[in-house]
Every structure is written in structure tokens, then in C-alpha cells.
């Protein structure tokens, strides 16, 4: 039985390495052109090459998003680019513009074509059309329910990729150009200004509907944490995490939690740790729901007023090394913490643990009461051996 793939976003080469380190089976990345996150750092050609080499060494795959809706002016250098990334051995491209299938055929390119969620594939007949035309995998529209997914798999036997966690579009993907109209930024070429996060006044003719509650169409985030087993049983091939613009800490947290759950299911000891739910919520600091998985979203799947999005400073530092002789963690600080704080340490494919900070030493070995300079290298005592690239966060589990 093939294990389901855990597919993580990577906004740049650093995030690619973190995602793979923390357990992603595959990552999706974007080049500086042709990608829907036009304002992310993204990858240069050299970085794509390096990312693929790193991923393949670690038995992971790299999918490159070529998912803008192309205008005439965007097509000029596309063939040359696709030939180049094929030479780098990328495993697939994720695209919504199906003319690229002709380019793949013309040049006999090796990578697979995965149809982007931007095409909003919701049914088996559409899936069959794409299957007949050499689409190897479909990233389903996020509006599909559990029953839709089951039916599409049963009727097409198609490789399906399903979003399991992250922010949602308000509209059918690719069918929202609010950004174009309200800000002149082209949403289908990576310029989305996230109009669905704005608030508006709603009127009936000239009568304001409600002066206390702004009209908004912002969806809460999606999390299918509690449905992973069902999705595996349905035969979904790949679980996708949203968020190429998200931080390393977010990525490591989300990937490690889903990695653990998937592995536990295949090992026969499926259970969900309440602490994982808490960690998932805190790292994005947005409410999550199942969205379309079990029913059509109601008012409970939307944000109106009363939503708080205070940024937290949970992420305290990155482990650089472990001094076995002195039983000390050598870390690079990210956010403020102090002596006597309770912290939690987690790392790739291991159980997290908590401890109280007995002391903090600076680089010269001086004991200091608190860590207040991000990027500063510090030492704290710990009797449990930790590894480079483990992450340190506030212990918020009590």
C-alpha cells in the first residue's frame, strides 16, 4: 500500500529544506515568473536546481507551480523555461493553463502535469477530460466534499491532491478577479490583494443593512486534521498544505503535526493529540474549520466581527547545536524569553518535550536574565539531547 504524500509549500530555498527536514514527502515551489505568489521571494533557476538536488537526496519530490493564467505577453519564454526545469529533474509542474500539455508533448518533457486547484475541478466528468489528456494528477477545487472526493476517485481512478490545511479563497479558485477591479492587481497572475479579507458596508438600495456588523466574506482557515484517516481511506494520493508565504516556524509546526498523524495511522495507532490542535491554531492564529468537507459552509465558517488576530511570539529560537559535555542547547534566538519561562522543544520526527529555563548564557558565557535580541546566539541547559534545527517555542500546552 502506497503511503499518502504530504505536500508542503516552500516560498524559498530555506523553507524547502525546513519542510523536507520536518517530514514533507514533497514540496511545491514557485519560480520568479509564472507563479501565483508573484510577491513572494520565490526561487531563481539556480535555487530550483539546488532545491531538487536537496529534495531528491532526501527522497522528497519537487513540484513547480506554473499556475498563473497566462496572458499573451507571459508566454514568450515559457517553453525555454519548462525545458530548463525539466533538465533539473523537477518531478511535476502544477499548472492551470492546459495548453502547457502541448509543450510537454512537443519537447517530450519528463515531469508530470498536475492540474492546479485554479481550475476548480469539482466532478468526475471534468476529471475524466483531463485524465484523457495526460494530466497525471488533479488538485481538486476546495469546494469538494467528502462525497465528491469519493465519487471522483471511484469514477476516474485519478490521482487526487486535496488541500488539508491553510487559508481558503472565498471564491472558486481562478474565478475571483475582485483584486483586479478594486486594486487593479491581477489576481490570476499572482497579484491578489486579498479583497476577501476586507470589510464592507452592505446596502439594500440606500439602506444600510447593519451598522454594527460589517459585511465580510472572509473564510476561516481549513483544517482536516480530524479527517486524515477518512481521506486516506478514500484513496486520496496527496495531502496539500497551503501557505507559500508562511514562516519557517509555521511550516515546521504544521508539517511535523501532519507527519506524525499520517505515520501513526499507517503504524496502526491513530490518535489526535489535543496539544497538536492547540499548536496548529496558535501558529496561524486563525480559527479553523472543515470548510466544505462535511457540508456547505455556513456563517460559522466565515469571519465577520470579533475576530482577534494578535500576533504571538511563540517561536523562541532555533537549535544550532547541542553541547553534550555541558548539557546545553546552543540556540539562535527569535523572540523574547526569560529565566524560569517554560519552553517546549520539537523537532523532525520526534516527540516534543517541555522544560523550564534554568539559566540563559550569552555568547561570552555570561549569565543573562532574558533573551531580548533576535538572532543572538545563546545557551540554555537541557539534559535531553536535542538536534540541530529543532525548534523552541513557548510551552502553551498547560
Amino acid at each position: 500500500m502506497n503511503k499518502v504524500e504530504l505536500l508542503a509549500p516552500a516560498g524559498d530555498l530555506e523553507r524547502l529544506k525546513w519542510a523536507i527536514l520536518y517530514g514533507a514527502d514533497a514540496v511545491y515551489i514557485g519560480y520568479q515568473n509564472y507563479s501565483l505568489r508573484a510577491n513572494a521571494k520565490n526561487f531563481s533557476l539556480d535555487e530550483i536546481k539546488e532545491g531538487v538536488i536537496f529534495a531528491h537526496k532526501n527522497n522528497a519530490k519537487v513540484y513547480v507551480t506554473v499556475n498563473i493564467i497566462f496572458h499573451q505577453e507571459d508566454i514568450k519564454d515559457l517553453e525555454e523555461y519548462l525545458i530548463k526545469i525539466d533538465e533539473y529533474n523537477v518531478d511535476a509542474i502544477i499548472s492551470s493553463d492546459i495548453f502547457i500539455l502541448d509543450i510537454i508533448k512537443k519537447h517530450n518533457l519528463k515531469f508530470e502535469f498536475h492540474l492546479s486547484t485554479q481550475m476548480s475541478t469539482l466532478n468526475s466528468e471534468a476529471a475524466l477530460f483531463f485524465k484523457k489528456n495526460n494530466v497525471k494528477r488533479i488538485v481538486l477545487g476546495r469546494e469538494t466534499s467528502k462525497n465528491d472526493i469519493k465519487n471522483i476517485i471511484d469514477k476516474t481512478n485519478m490521482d487526487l491532491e486535496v488541500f488539508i490545511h491553510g487559508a481558503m479563497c472565498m471564491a472558486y479558485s481562478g474565478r475571483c478577479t475582485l483584486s483586479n477591479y478594486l486594486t487593479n492587481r491581477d489576481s490570476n497572475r499572482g497579484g491578489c490583494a486579498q479583497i476577501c479579507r476586507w470589510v464592507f458596508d452592505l446596502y439594500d438600495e440606500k439602506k444600510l443593512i447593519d451598522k454594527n456588523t460589517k459585511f465580510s466574506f472572509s473564510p476561516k482557515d481549513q483544517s482536516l486534521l480530524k479527517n486524515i484517516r477518512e481521506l486516506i481511506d478514500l484513496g486520496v494520493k496527496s495531502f496539500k498544505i497551503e501557505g507559500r508565504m508562511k514562516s519557517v516556524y509555521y511550516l515546521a509546526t504544521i508539517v511535523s503535526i501532519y507527519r506524525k498523524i499520517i505515520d501513526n495511522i499507517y503504524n496502526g495507532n491513530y490518535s489526535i493529540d489535543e496539544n497538536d490542535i492547540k499548536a496548529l491554531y496558535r501558529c496561524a492564529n486563525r480559527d479553523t474549520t472543515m470548510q466544505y468537507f462535511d457540508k456547505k459552509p455556513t456563517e460559522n465558517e466565515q469571519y465577520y466581527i470579533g475576530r482577534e488576530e494578535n500576533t504571538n511570539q511563540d517561536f523562541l529560537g532555533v537549535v544550532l547545536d547541542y553541547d553534550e559535555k555541558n548539557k546545553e542547547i546552543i540556540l539562535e534566538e527569535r523572540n523574547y524569553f526569560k529565566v524560569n519561562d517554560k519552553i517546549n522543544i520539537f523537532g523532525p520526527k520526534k516527540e516534543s518535550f517541555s522544560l523550564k529555563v534554568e539559566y540563559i548564557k550569552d555568547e561570552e558565557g555570561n549569565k543573562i536574565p532574558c533573551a531580548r535580541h533576535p538572532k543572538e546566539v545563546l545557551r540554555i541547559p537541557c539534559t535531553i539531547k536535542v538536534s540541530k534545527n529543532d525548534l523552541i517555542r513557548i510551552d502553551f500546552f498547560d
Partner: protein
Amino acid sequence: MTKILVNCPNLKRINEYKNHSFDGFILGIEGYSENFNNYVKINELQTYLNEINKLNKDVYIFLNKLYFEEEISGLKDVIKELINNNITNIGFTDYSVLNIINDMKYDKNIVWISNHLGTNSNTINYLNKFGVNKVFLSTEITKDEIISIKNNVNCNVIVKMYGHLLMATSSRKLLSNYFKYINKNKDKDLYTFKDIVKNKDYLIKEEDNSLFLTKDVLNDLLFLKELYDNKVDYIYLDDYLIDDKKFLNIIDAYSDGLNNIDDVDFINKLNEVVKINTENNTFNGFLDKKTVFRVNDYE
């Protein structure tokens, strides 16, 4: 020769279009189409066709929704009915329709209603292999892009030149959900929402899906000659929320424009007629406005 397409009104009003010059009616099928003033029940189709035949107009059926799995069986029945009624132009947005009509060996005109996605010639040429020979272009591209696409495809292109523009489609019941949240009754399906910062109004309509529309009305009559000269095959005039009588004046203005395509002064006068009949709330959309997508490019 550029032709004019308009939406089909309800059965009683079809005859009002008798003395107006245009080429084809677009029909939406109840439950399988969206963003129409009037929907045709599939069992009424024959009656509509009889009326339209009296006016000697072409018929286009636009199946312009995205469909969920549970709708596919009904969709197949509708398509069978369209084929049985010898419909010569079937439009699709969801690829399920293309797959089904290809499987049914439908050999008439297939129209891709691209809903924002018809932005380049390569995609259109790809679809041409599957029988797609008419394309409703994106309403978010420039005149130069339209012309470039037209020059690089073997398909007919359709350009919307008048009407409220569809900005987005959501499968969420955004109005119903909001009214539930504020514990008030939703009395209708169409409301206005205001961008508070820019004090600008837009429309939201709830059908099966929630549809976001411009409140301003697209009017590109002043671009008619350029599109005509570049052999744009069809223009589409959309009557949604436009007064019935005034819309007939709009059809006449565009039709007169096509018949007097080189008379700049006359077209300018026609443009004023269109504006008056639209209460001056018109704009040019993106024909003369290029979008940007990198923050660095944003002025």
C-alpha cells in the same frame, strides 16, 4: 462582419426584439446556468425555440456554471435535450460539459465561456482540438490583448461590450450567511456592498452561487471600430439589471454603430445615447487599462 449577441428575455418579451438588429440570443437553463435575468426550464426549451425561430435568430445555450458531482446526471440529461433540439451553439465553463458533449459526438459549435480565464491564444488553440470554435474572452484583458488573441487563433471570439461585469463567483451563500449572523431576514437576492475606503459600490447577487458584479456598467462602444477593424467576430450586450426598454435602445446603438462604423461623430453621439440609457454609470472596464501583479509594478 461583427455580430451582436444578447440574452434571451422571457417568452412574453421575445417578440419585442423583432424590430431590433442583432444576430443571436443567449439562453440560460434553469439550474445549469447562472447570471441571467431569465432562465429557461428545459421542458420549455422547444417553446422558446419556436418563438426565436420566428425572429430568425441564432440560439446559444450557455451552461456557464461549475458543477458538483451530484449535478452531473442532470447535466447529462440537459445536454441530451439540447442535442435532440438541434442546438447549434453550446457554451461551457466546466470541462465536464466539454467531456460529455465530446463523448456524445456533438459536432456543432462549442463555445468556451472562459469566465476570466480566456486570456491567451495558446489555451484557445489547445481547446480548438476538442471542437471549441468560439470563445467568450476574459473581461479583464486589454483591447490590444483581444486583438493579439484574435490574430493568433482559428476560433471566433466573443467580447462583452455592455453590461455589469462579473468579478467573482463563490459557492458560499455569502448573503444568507451574513443575514443569519446578524439575525436579520434576507428579503432579496441582490444587494450593494460599498468599499468604505474608496466609497465605491459593487453588487452581490445570491443564486446557487454568490456572484460579485460591478455596479457600474461596461460600455465600450467607443472601442467598437477598433474591434470591428480587427475582425472581432461577436460582441455581447448584457441586459442584466438594465431597464427592458432602455436595453433595446442599447442594442440599436451598437447595431447602428456597426452599420456606420467609420462615422466617428455618429458613434460619439450613439455613445451618449448609451450613457443616457444607462444613467451615466458607465465605465470602460479593462480595454484601456492594463492590470499589474507585482507590487513593485504598482503605481
